[in-house]
């Protein structure tokens, strides 16, 4: 499912390089999810599901057509577009691949 980028030109001495190249980078995954529907799970029990428009280094995210869900399954919205502060984000799950 996750493609591991293998770079044959990496020399054995570049240990640091090896680490960064052989693992899947989290921010890369988020970047690939732009334009797709994602669920953003906060540290509280709130969740936001919507199309990912963009994000920054702090992983503040901009979502489109967002529905907000709480732990009891009550939904709110849809909201056309929103900026969601990254400070409270616990996880971002890509609902589609």
């Amino acid at each position, binding site marked *: *499912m*996750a493609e591991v980028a293998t770079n044959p030109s990496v020399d054995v001495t570049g240990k*640091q390089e090896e*680490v*960064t190249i052989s*693992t*899947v*980078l*989290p*921010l890369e*995954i*988020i970047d690939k999810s732009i334009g797709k529907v994602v*669920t953003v*799970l*906060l*540290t*509280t*029990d709130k969740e936001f599901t919507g199309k990912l428009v963009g994000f920054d280094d702090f*992983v503040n995210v901009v979502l489109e057509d967002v529905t907000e869900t709480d*732990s*009891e399954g009550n939904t709110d919205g849809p909201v056309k577009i929103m900026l969601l502060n*990254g*400070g*409270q*984000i*616990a*996880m*971002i*799950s*890509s*609902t589609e*691949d």
Partner: protein
Amino acid sequence: MESKETARDGNQNNRDHKDQRRRNNGTKQEGPKREAILDLNKYKDTQIKVEFIGGRQIVGVLKGFDQLMNLVLESVEETLRDPEDPNVLTKDTRSLGRVVVRGPSLLTISPLDGSEVIDNPFVAAEVQA
């Protein structure tokens, strides 16, 4: 003639020093390369349990991570909590698939293998006392 030569050398040296100083001021003083406190490579492709600030708890297969401890997990199952008391975990889980975990809201990471849940050792002690 010779003295002139040395004088010029001296100037050259002086300038080199200045260059050096300027360069040092420009770049931050860096100590030895900072290593991550925990080498997550060891846990790659194994199941780990992650707890978050706020109390969420998930189990998933570690696929990737970065220096800031953001993680990529696959086949993630979130352990649901009792709606009445969020401190109590239920046996129910739900699947989240592939998930990116934000480093800043991480509380604990632990491997699932080699860990086991034990009975509360303090309950018996309390009864005795």
